[in-house]
């Protein structure tokens, strides 16, 4: 064996040690990442301002009391009426129908996929769900109009059958549209619950059903509620289906077989006609838009509160 030299090898020359090139590059990278982050905030603020300014002008001309309590909506007529309640009611009815479909079905589908389905079934079904979530909403709109509505009209059992345009058909199809999103995100939340909790519950003699409902669902609750909120927000903001299938009649009623107009459908419909920029009709669109925005914002805040209160943190 060769003698071990006690001298250390000559270290690399010290040149370059104080070079600033790397440091500058790092600064440029940090700077551009910051700009990207800042851009999204600036854009959000910009959008809110773009909504806010015409709305404020609108409320200068129409009193907010009339807007929020009036029961007639006819902003584009000569004898114009600015009561937003019929639109709000329409949105509420359609959203409730959609939620009644997609929340229970979505949760049950998620429980099946996460807790009961074999790994192969899951790996097969989950991508299909995600493809379903990507179908354009206009397709769903025509599905409602040309398939669900005739089906309902022909097989109606109680009282007056639904009209050609009705809220029920739009709501049902909207529920079907949101279902994959709710199921997929809830399933992610449940699947992420550690296996050790399931094993612990099983060792206490819990059945699969008890494990799912008493351990996995509570532990994944924050994700499940997030899925619900996302689903409902999509329902509130969905335009195409209601525009096509629910009709264009502002109608203050809770009877789902009648035609209705939702807030989004009004924006969509009014945006298609020619409203002169700066006219009251033009500003109406923004007033309705900001009401919609505030509505979803409040919903999100409430759900974040709920999640904080009830979630079970497992890590």
């Amino acid at each position, binding site marked *: 064996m060769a003698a071990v030299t006690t001298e250390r090898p000559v270290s690399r020359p010290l040149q370059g040690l104080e070079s600033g090139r790397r440091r500058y590059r790092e600064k440029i990278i940090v700077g551009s990442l910051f700009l990207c982050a800042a851009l999204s905030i600036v854009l959000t603020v910009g959008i809110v301002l773009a909504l806010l300014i015409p709305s404020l002008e609108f409320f200068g001309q129409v009193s907010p009391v009339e807007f929020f309590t009036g029961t007639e909506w006819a902003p584009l007529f000569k004898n114009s009426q600015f009561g937003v309640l019929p639109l709000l009611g329409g949105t509420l009815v359609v959203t409730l129908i959609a939620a009644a479909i997609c929340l229970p079905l979505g949760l049950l589908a998620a429980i099946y996929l996460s807790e009961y389905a*074999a*790994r192969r079934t899951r790996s097969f079904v989950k991508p299909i769900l995600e493809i379903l979530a990507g179908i354009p909403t206009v397709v769903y709109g025509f599905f409602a109009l040309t398939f669900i509505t005739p089906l309902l009209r022909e097989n109606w059992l109680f009282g007056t059958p639904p009209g050609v345009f009705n809220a029920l058909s739009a709501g049902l199809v909207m529920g079907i549209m949101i279902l994959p999103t709710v199921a997929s995100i809830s399933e992610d939340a449940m699947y992420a619950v*550690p296996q*050790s*909790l*399931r*094993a*612990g*519950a*099983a*060792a*206490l*003699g*819990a*059945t699969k059903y*008890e494990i799912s409902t*008493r*351990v996995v669902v*509570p*532990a994944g609750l924050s994700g499940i509620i997030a899925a619900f909120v996302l689903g409902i927000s999509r329902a509130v903001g969905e335009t195409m289906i209601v525009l096509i299938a629910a009709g264009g009649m502002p109608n203050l009623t809770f009877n789902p077989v009648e035609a209705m107009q939702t807030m989004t459908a009004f924006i969509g419909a009014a945006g298609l006609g020619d409203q002169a920029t700066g006219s009251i009709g033009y500003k109406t669109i923004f007033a309705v838009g900001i009401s919609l925005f505030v509505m979803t914002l409040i919903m999100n805040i409430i759900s974040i509160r709920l999640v904080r209160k009830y979630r*079970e*943190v*497992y890590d």
Partner: protein
Amino acid sequence: MIERPMSENRGAVVMDEPERTREGSSDAGVAPEAGADAVLQESAKLAEVTRERRRQVKKDADAETVFELKDVAVTYGGSYAVQGVSMSIRKNEITALIGPSGCGKTTVLRCLNRTNDLIQGAKVHGQVLYHDIDLYGPKVEPVEVRRRIGMVFQKPNPFPKSIYDNVAFGPRVGGFKGNMDELVERSLRRAALWDEVKRDLKASAMALSGGQQQRLCIARCIAVEPDVILMDEPCSALDPVSTLRIEELMDELVSEYTIIIVTHNMQQAARVSDRTGFFTVAEGQDEKDHRIGILVEYDLTPTVFTNPSDPRTEAYVTGRFG
């Protein structure tokens, strides 16, 4: 994590051993205080005395058999994990299963309450008799088996619920109709956790220290009033003080339950158990040259540790291997 001041946890455990109270409950990562070693040794000595007494009694009484394993083998997706395990486990004894990693001791443990069923591709061969009933018989309901044979896991796995709800979980799913508050208190007392948590049973179990969480898991297990408690390396994630407390707890519990513990820690097996089964890995016994776990020796613990009959056991227990 909620750090409670040490003083609040004092006087928690056994009243006639004042020194013991120094083992605060915020045990994770606590630097040993001066004299902590002495305390450890002291209580270890005391525990040893009770164990000796118990063993004396055991030898005389010819205990009833709880489990009878007959040539048990487990396959995962067709390849053997463990093979040819025959042993009988006695009532009100602590049976330790020891051996190097991969020797199949946990797999055997999981056979005993059918938790292997939860693993896809796992299959149990041979016979596992529990009080003379074939656990894998066609009419046996795994959920009922697990209600009678509880399990404590390697890593404490309390549910992310309150302490109370953790203990009440098993009885609730089991349809318990009696006084739940009383049952929760009794179970927490049995698991030597009551005094530390009684102030706030609504607190999240996740805020407890690792050692407390593991005792909570034991309390949770006791609450369903099982017949047998399986423990899968219950102390491997705990510090020495918490480990000692769990061992003391096992000593107390064994008067009512049958305990089977898997451990990597030979000292632990020697300290707590009445009988020890030594498993090892046999190389390439099937055509695919898989490593298979086998049971080498199963006997009274003192015999296994001081006078083993198999040279492999001797090599392992004397630390020359594993």
